[in-house]
Structure formats: structure tokens, C-alpha cells
């Protein structure tokens, strides 16, 4: 292989690597089969055929606090807002990351909906996996979602 060719090849690999890094989704999860990737861009959004939605995002861990603190703060805040707390489920992911899922019911239009907030605290960052949907539709996928959350991993 000529030197020029090798250089072009290396440059190509470099470009691909940069492109792949730029496009990489910062989180990974074995989503339940009912959920389909909703957005192919650099985001983490899933949706089921009947409209149960899931997405992940990150926020600053400020003021810096533990998972337990944020779990309580979230419950307190959403209950004050009129959300009906139904369950808090704390667990460890397959990779050993601690997380807590808080599930709330709330009226939305003429329907009852579920809003679920799952919190992972990673030092300076909090990763939130949020899921919502109409009550019965959400309940239909809730168990699968609970299992899937154990496979969640932030690639930050």
C-alpha cells in the first residue's frame, strides 16, 4: 500500500470515528420490543404503537446530592403539583448503577395518565429516563419497561 493510500485510509477512519462519536447516542438500553426508536438523531426517544413514550436526558447534579435526595425531592415536587404517587422502585442496573423509578398517575385531558421518572446519579450529572402514556396503555408495558431499565447504561 502506498503511503498516500495509507494516509487516505487513516484519514477516512479518523473521519468515521469522529462522525460516529458525534452521532453516538449517549445512552444504551435494551428497549422492550413494543418500543421503537422514535428519533434517529443524537437523542434517546422511544415510542410504542399506542403512544407510550420514553426518553432520556441529563441535567446538572446541582446542588450536588445523592440519589436518595433527588428521589425524595422529585416525589415531593410532583405530589405538590397534583401528581398521585403510586410507586417508588429502586434498583441496580446490570452494570451496577443505582437508579430509582418514581411512578405517578395524573389526569390528562379526559384521560388518566402515568408519568414515570427514573433517576440515575453520576457524580456531576443526573441522568433522567422519563416515560409516560395513558394509564392502561402504560400498565400494559410497565413490567417490560421495568426490566429494560435494568439494562440502561449512560455512555457519558
Amino acid at each position: 500500500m502506498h503511503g498516500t493510500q495509507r494516509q487516505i485510509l487513516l484519514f477516512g477512519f479518523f473521519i468515521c470515528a469522529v462522525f460516529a462519536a458525534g452521532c453516538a447516542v449517549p445512552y444504551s438500553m435494551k428497549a422492550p420490543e413494543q418500543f421503537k426508536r422514535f428519533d434517529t438523531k443524537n437523542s434517546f426517544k422511544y415510542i410504542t404503537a399506542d403512544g407510550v413514550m420514553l426518553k432520556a436526558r441529563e441535567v446538572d447534579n446541582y446542588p450536588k446530592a445523592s440519589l436518595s435526595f433527588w428521589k425524595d425531592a422529585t416525589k415531593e415536587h410532583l405530589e405538590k403539583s397534583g401528581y398521585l404517587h403510586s410507586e417508588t422502585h429502586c434498583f441496580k442496573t446490570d452494570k451496577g448503577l443505582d437508579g430509582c423509578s418514581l411512578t405517578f398517575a395524573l389526569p390528562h385531558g379526559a384521560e388518566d395518565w402515568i408519568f414515570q421518572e427514573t433517576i440515575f446519579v453520576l457524580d456531576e450529572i443526573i441522568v433522567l429516563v422519563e416515560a409516560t402514556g395513558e394509564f392502561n396503555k402504560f400498565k400494559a408495558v410497565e413490567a417490560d419497561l421495568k426490566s429494560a431499565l435494568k439494562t440502561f447504561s449512560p455512555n457519558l
Partner: protein
Amino acid sequence: MKSRLITVLLFSGTLLFVGAATAKNKKNTDTPDTAKQTEAATANTDDAQTEPAKEETSETSTPAENSSPTEETDVRLTSIQSRMTLKVVNPDEAREQLKKIAASYGGYATRITDTNIVLKVPPTQITQAMEAFVKQGILVEKTIERKDLTLKIAQLEGKLTSQNEILAKLRSFFDDSDFTATLEIERSMSRLVYEIEQVKGELRYLYDQAEWAVVEVDFRFRERESVMYVSSPFEWLNSANLSTFLEEF
């Protein structure tokens, strides 16, 4: 003979008057207690709504219970009526489950509709039964109302005893009465028997209320405060809500 008739009429008239006056007095004394009981029950309901854990405390602090209504009655007779709203995935399955739970505590279902179920369970099992009911869904709201029926039942039983005594006395006049007096006695007795049957009916109803605690389970959200925006001192929490989620999705 005429004097005999007058004696009978006077006696039966006096007995009926005394009976009616006694009943009226009891009714008068009963009214404030009933008000107290209702007030206490309302307070209990409020307690149950805001802090269900206080149920047992409020149950023991009912004013009517502290007033020791009768010396003869040792056992408290209480009517318990509870209402809860549960959000469930499948109301049909939940109904069946609730019926099974009620049966396991010695109770049964008395009314079943598409949206609710009314169950009766023994009062001694009410706490455990309600805990089991709540596990069948998400508890939206719960109220529990307790009324002490001991005083009311004791008063009605007293009234019944005195009415039966009057009836027996009236019967004893039959032997020596002429036609007119017999007619008058019969009229008085008919009136008395009617009153006795009314009291017996009331007593049956109250005993039934004391024998079973009634739990009405509703499977829908009742009207309640809607979701509102509440600001949090923690910035990211202000974006943790359904509206923001839907906007950003």
C-alpha cells in the same frame, strides 16, 4: 259496669301517654348525641382523608363513646361505612379479586356495577380487608365514617320493653271488659302493636348496620384537583413534568 269501662279507658290512656312521653324524652336526649356522633363521624372522615393512619385513634376518641350511654350494654355497636376510589387496569378482574378478598374475611358483595362494588365485611376485619382492597390498584381517595349505635339501640330496646309491658297490661283487661271497653282496648293495642313493629324494624336495621361494615369501592377517578404548575427551588425539577415531556418529545 260503667265505672269499670271508665277505669279501663283511664288506665290505657295513662299508659299510652306515659309511653309516648317516655319515647319523646328519649328522642330529645338522643338528638344532641346523634349530632355529636355525626360531627365525630365527619371529623373522622376528614381525618381519614388527610391522614388515613389516624383511623384507629379517631375511632377510639368518638365523644359518643365516652359518654357511657348504658350500663347494661358492654359491647360497643358501631356502624362503619367506608368509601374508596381505586384506579385499576382491569375493573372486571379487580371486582372479582375484591369479592374473593371480602369472602376470605367472611364478607360478601351486595352490589356490583360497571364502575363500583359494594362489599360487606365483619367490622372486626375491616382494617385488614381494606388494606387488601387497596393493594388491588392505586388508591386515589379513601373515607371512613364510624357511628356509635350503642345508645340508640339501647334506647330502642328500652322503648320496646316498655311497649311490650303496656301491651301485656292491656291484654289483662280483656277478661272483665264489656263490648265497648273491649273495642277501646283493641284500638289502643292496634296502635301499640304498630309502634312496636316500627321499633323492631328500626332495631333490625341498626343491628344489621352494626353487624357489617360497608365498603364501597369506586373504580374511577372522582373529581379532584387538577395538576398545576408548582415552582421548585431545584431547577431541573421544574422541567420534570408531563407538559414539558410532551412539548420536548
